């Protein structure tokens, strides 16, 4: 692997890599891709194979003949759509509230006169590093007292607080990169801060807001521990809890598990692949360049 060729000028001047290291790079890239998507592709293949093939040796890499019995099983036999509906309600509400509260906070921190803004930001970041197991017990006690167990709102409120640090931080960084002259003009014209925010800053920052919303969505969609602790009936349990409970009495229904995995993951994977550039820059604070 040659480390010499990183500079773009050299590449453009026709810097010749030793061919051996080019081969090595492509080989490594191939290994990375196979390692990353291989297990999920196998899960997809599994979801389309009948049980008799799954239990036979050697395993069939490609599903033939294709069956959709596992997908029928999870929706007809296990009411999987119930979990999906719960997850969609909780996740969409969480994402919306996170973006609303977090973006206003980020705007205030980035633009308005707030004493000790970096202390506030440091506080928010510090909170995001709390181990979640340290709050699940006390929250359960509180939830019991409030009668909030087995509700959507208990999960939404918790996920909101867990998601806000990320949203605030990412959007704070983005809002600060917008030139001040733009909103100062509006301010001179007499616009109030909230109006400036909703009419000027927010529309300008739509890509960043969408990316942040997606990060928030994925985190809430995937959360398991709180959902497990706070919900116990199918009318409020989310998808991760549903999948975790997919165990047969005598054997694990691997085909059904695979089908459920594909149903919940495929939208995420498609979303991530479509918005990958935005997500990478959102996750790394804009540091990864093309």
């Amino acid at each position, binding site marked *: *692997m*040659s*480390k*010499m*060729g*990183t*500079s*773009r*000028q050299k590449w453009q001047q026709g810097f010749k890599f030793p061919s051996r290291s*080019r081969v090595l790079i492509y080989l490594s*890239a191939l290994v*990375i*891709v196979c390692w*990353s998507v291989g297990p*999920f592709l196998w899960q997809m293949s599994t979801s389309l194979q009948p049980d008799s093939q799954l*239990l036979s040796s*050697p*395993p069939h890499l490609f599903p033939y003949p294709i069956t959709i019995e596992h997908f029928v099983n999870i929706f007809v036999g296990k009411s999987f759509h119930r979990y999906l509906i719960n997850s969609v309600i909780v996740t969409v509400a969480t994402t919306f509230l996170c973006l609303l*509260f977090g973006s206003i*906070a980020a*705007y205030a921190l980035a633009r*308005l006169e*707030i004493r000790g803004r970096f202390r*506030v930001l440091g506080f928010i970041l510090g*909170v995001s590093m709390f*181990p*979640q*197991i*340290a*709050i699940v*017990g*006390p*929250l359960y*006690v*509180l939830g*019991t007292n409030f009668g909030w167990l087995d509700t959507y709102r208990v999960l939404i409120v918790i996920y909101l*607080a867990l998601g*806000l640090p990320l949203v*605030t931080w990412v959007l704070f960084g983005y809002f600060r990169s917008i030139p001040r002259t733009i909103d100062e003009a509006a301010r001179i014209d007499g616009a*109030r*801060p909230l109006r400036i925010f909703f009419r000027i800053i927010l529309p300008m920052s739509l890509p960043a807001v969408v990316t942040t919303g997606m990060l928030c969505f*994925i985190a809430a969609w*995937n959360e*398991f521990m709180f959902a*497990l*602790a706070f919900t116990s009936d199918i009318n409020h349990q989310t998808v*991760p*809890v549903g*999948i975790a409970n997919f165990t047969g009495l005598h054997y694990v229904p*691997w085909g059904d*598990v695979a089908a459920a*995995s594909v149903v919940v993951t495929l939208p*995420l*994977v498609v*979303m*991530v692949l479509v918005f990958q550039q935005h997500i*990478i820059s959102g996750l*790394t604070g804009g*540091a*990864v360049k093309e």
Partner: protein
Amino acid sequence: MAITEAEMHTRTLRPGNIRFRFWRPGPFVFLLPTLASIGAIAIYPVLLGLWLSFRDTTLSSPTDTFIGLANYGQIVSDSQFWNAWTHTIQFTAASTLLETLFGLMIALVLAEQFRGRGIVRAAMLVPWAIPTVVTSKMFGWLFDGQNGIVNYLLRFVGLIQHNIDWIGSPDFALGTIIIADVWKTTPFMGLLLLAGLQTIPSSLAEASVIDGANAWQHFWYVKLPLLTPTLLIASMFRALDAFRIFDLVYVLTGGGPADATEVLSTLTYKQLFSALQVGYGSALATTMFITEIVIAVIFGVFLLRKMREVGQ
């Protein structure tokens, strides 16, 4: 600036309305929803947990008295705690080390210019986006003792003679969990380190070439020292995250077989929600919290020292 701010407030508060003139909320109002949610869902429960850890509260009986440090005394002599502690440290050390190492290798590959680099980067986000519960089930099937494809492949290439019960045997279960975690988190680590690599100016590579350094020397003496702060920060976040592992263990093995994969989070969760020992469980959680702070401080000290070295 200050004048415009003041003007803004009087405007916000409808000039002429005397009742509101004295109430000057200031820009802090915009922070209120965020700080209130975080305070109610993070700060208050942590303090409540601390308070509960000094009590013998249970959810199954009405006992609820102050017992001082008795819970912490019980932790020190609890063999289950030390068992979980050992696994947690093993898991944290192994996964952080492997993920940093593999992540660095991936970042070095991605720092090169080659065709299809975007596709590789996109593919790397797939493990990150998959729900951890799905990852657990996926690895449960991949490493299944009877029909798992990993056993088949290992037999096929002749590395093993008989199927290994990866998840059901105490010798392999923790290792399988580490492999699953490495799969899920390494690509993300690679992206973070790639971000660090890309801040290193390319002029340094040219300087190395002029000085006659080979690729390995350039990496070892130029890139690695400059990347050290990024490596430390990334591995700190990774270690803090690994220390609180829950989903993977809970779904893949449930802490078994024979407590061979029990970690602190799963132990605490069981104390809270199966044994309903809120007091003792809170003491366990507080202990974890303190350990996390210690980990962060250790990394922080290292980081400051390294940054001072690089700065000089």
